[in-house]
């Protein structure tokens, strides 16, 4: 399945785009996506930390992804 990943802050700089499409096996977990992203964009491993958000909620590593999910990479936040 193809999922679209939104990127913000430093992740947008790393991806060079505000969203990218990634090919994932069906029933891939959030942790699978993280490994794929870190493989494709090694600079992701150099930031302090990052989380995935799925459908506007922070996602645990064992969350099963769906092609209709809205997925985003959330680097360390710094609002306020």
């Amino acid at each position, binding site marked *: 399945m193809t999922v679209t990943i939104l990127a913000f*802050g430093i992740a947008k*700089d790393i991806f060079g785009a505000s969203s990218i499409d990634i090919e994932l096996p069906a029933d891939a977990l959030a942790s699978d996506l993280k490994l794929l992203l870190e493989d494709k964009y090694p600079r992701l491993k150099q930031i302090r930390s990052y989380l995935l958000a799925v459908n506007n909620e922070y996602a645990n590593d064992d969350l099963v992804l769906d092609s209709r999910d809205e997925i*985003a990479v959330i680097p360390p936040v710094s*609002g306020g």
Partner: protein
Amino acid sequence: MNTYIHISPTPLNIQSCIDLVMSPSCGGIDVFIGTVRDATKGKQVLRLEFEAYEKMAVSEMQKLADRAMQQWPVQKVVIHHRTGVLQVGEVPVVIAVAAAHRDAAFEACRFLIDTLKQTVPIWKKEVFEDGEVWVSATP
């Protein structure tokens, strides 16, 4: 409605935020106003750029407001955050909390700004004369 959450690319109106929480049954309002400082760690800041994952940021701010209403006897909560390019002295965030008694207003307001900075998907880029950096992004 007792909570007001808003993200806007235009300047925040502090007085409007305060008006939203004013209530005859409240005796105390605590307001936190973030402002853009001219320096960070001794280095001159030219401007800040704020980016938000807007839908999720609103949802996370709403969760914080709801938690504050549950944890403290507060009656009204406003959280307004700005996005885009902000010059020194401009206001990225206003939080206003009204309660019958001031204890709750102070504590809830403090909780809201502290937790907003930890959980709400908004990012700040500091722009210096010689470069720019996403705050907190790198070790």
